[in-house]
């Protein structure tokens, strides 16, 4: 069985909503309003952010690429930005200090994400909008570059492409929107229709040869969408390339696409499922783990890399972070 529990950490007193990994550190966000920073290889708690900064649940955390800057989006409608105090590496002290609190959204912030080069921060909210922020190098001053109001409902999640300046947002209006820069502003490049329920999460494929995105929805399905270009007719569009084999019996809250092409999904039914593409457009289930967080729902599932090793991290309503080993050398693949 490829999925094996490596470590279970009771980090929070309440639901864990979000996990992000960078430089071997995990940041976690929870209903208990705190954000914890963990050394993922030694399972050591490095810091716990001041839990009086946010007046409501911390819903989403995101590390700025190649830095110790962390953004945390909260139900209190603000986004806090933190950075590591002190000298890096040399210093053993590990403390995060608050750099800024960004206001602007009218109500709960649901997700925050940094572009691959750290130049932009995207945020989305129940106020139906996606905002794009630009900050200075220090990460202290923030200016709103764009307010995107094309979704007709609550926007649940934002994610950037790993190499391109492309943003995807998933919404309660059952669609995913792709956004791109245009002049000094941003515009909606595409709308992906097909899910029959709120789209909770999406993730881009880490590929340089094709443009694809996967999504998880309230309708219990996981879909893969592809950007196709018909050279003859010069038509470009997004199509729904595949709906992954049905395993989940309830809402899928989180999807993640690994560097080596596996998709992980987890949700309300407590299952963690891994899929691989046997043939282009044909997906098979590699493994599934039931009751990942006991009888509790799983809110986030993410592929992470610790010391060069690919692993999975999940967070659930039980307040636990579970780290899973992913052993692809195992030959007992189910449903092969």
């Amino acid at each position, binding site marked *: 069985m490829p999925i094996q529990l490596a470590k279970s950490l009771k980090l929070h007193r309440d*639901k864990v909503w979000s996990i992000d990994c960078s430089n071997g550190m995990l940041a976690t966000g929870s*209903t208990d309003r705190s954000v914890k920073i963990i050394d993922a290889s030694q399972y050591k708690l490095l810091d716990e952010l001041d839990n009086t900064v946010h007046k*409501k*649940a911390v*819903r989403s955390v995101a590390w700025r690429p190649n830095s110790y800057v962390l953004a945390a989006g909260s*139900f209190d409608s603000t986004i806090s930005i933190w950075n590591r105090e002190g000298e890096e590496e040399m210093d053993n002290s590990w403390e995060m200090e608050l750099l800024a609190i960004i206001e602007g959204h009218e*109500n*709960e912030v*649901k997700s925050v994400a940094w572009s691959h080069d750290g130049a932009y921060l995207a945020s989305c909210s*129940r106020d139906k909008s996606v905002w794009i922020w630009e900050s200075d190098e220090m990460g202290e001053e923030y200016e709103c570059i764009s307010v995107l109001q094309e979704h007709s409902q*609550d926007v*649940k999640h934002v994610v950037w492409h790993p190499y391109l300046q492309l943003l995807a947002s998933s919404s*309660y209006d059952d669609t995913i929107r792709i956004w791109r820069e245009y002049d000094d502003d941003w515009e909606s490049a595409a709308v992906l229709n097909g899910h029959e*329920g*709120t789209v909770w999460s999406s993730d881009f494929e880490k590929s340089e040869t094709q443009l694809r995105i996967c999504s998880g929805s*309230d309708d219990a399905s996981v879909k893969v969408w592809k950007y196709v270009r018909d050279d003859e007719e010069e038509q470009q569009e997004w199509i729904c390339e595949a709906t992954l084999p049905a395993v989940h019996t*309830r*809402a899928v809250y989180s999807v993640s696409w690994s560097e080596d092409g596996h998709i992980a999904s987890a949700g*309300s*039914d*407590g299952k963690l499922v891994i899929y691989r593409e046997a043939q282009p457009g044909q997906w098979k289930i590699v493994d599934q783990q039931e*009751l990942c967080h*006991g*009888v*509790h*729902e799983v809110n986030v599932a993410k592929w992470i890399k610790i010391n060069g090793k690919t692993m999975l991290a999940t967070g659930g*309503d*039980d307040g636990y972070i579970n780290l899973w080993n992913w052993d692809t050398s195992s030959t007992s693949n189910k449903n092969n």
Partner: protein
Amino acid sequence: MSEFINETPTVLEDNQLPTRGEDTDGNLLLGTDVTKESLHRTKLLLKIDNSLQSPVLQNVELLTKLLQLNQAPELTTDESDEDTDDMADELGVPADPIDPQEIYDLIAHISDPEHPLTLGQLAVVNLKDIEVHDEGYKDRMAEVIVKITPTITHCSLATLIGLGIRVRLERALPARFRITIFVKEGSHQSENQVNKQLNDKERVAAACENDQLLGVISKMLSTCK
């Protein structure tokens, strides 16, 4: 919508609401009405005689006397005292699965946000509209589906009522329960909208952090027993 399903509800008196029957059969020991006290008692009693068939256990009067006379040894308290399922597990059998009546009892006494009447009295919640799938095992998921019948078809209070029911059930039921609340088909103008909102875990979680809203809900739940 020309037909209001619950247009002029016949307001029920409290004693007309469906309840569990009187416990006359002496099912107290391992009956349907498994309460904390009864399980606790059962534990005490089983320390006296392990067999359930013991004539000692059958004689309730004798047992009461015995309990009063005997200083029953202190039981090691479980860590999760609130969870009666734990005790049930110690006995080696699943806790009694929760049934619709129990769910009904939990929510029927929630007050309507605007009237001094409860949801049971207004027939907004009805026993027949409650579905439960539970085997009683604490490590397996279970499901509760509640269908509500709001009194006005475009009543936006339906979302508030649904939220109140959700909060009540989430607090009262063990973690293994997946709660789904629907507005009964045909009883509301924006059914789909309302249903979607009521079953969106994130929206509900955020609503529960809204102090004003929580205040209203607390008032609604204050009439619960």
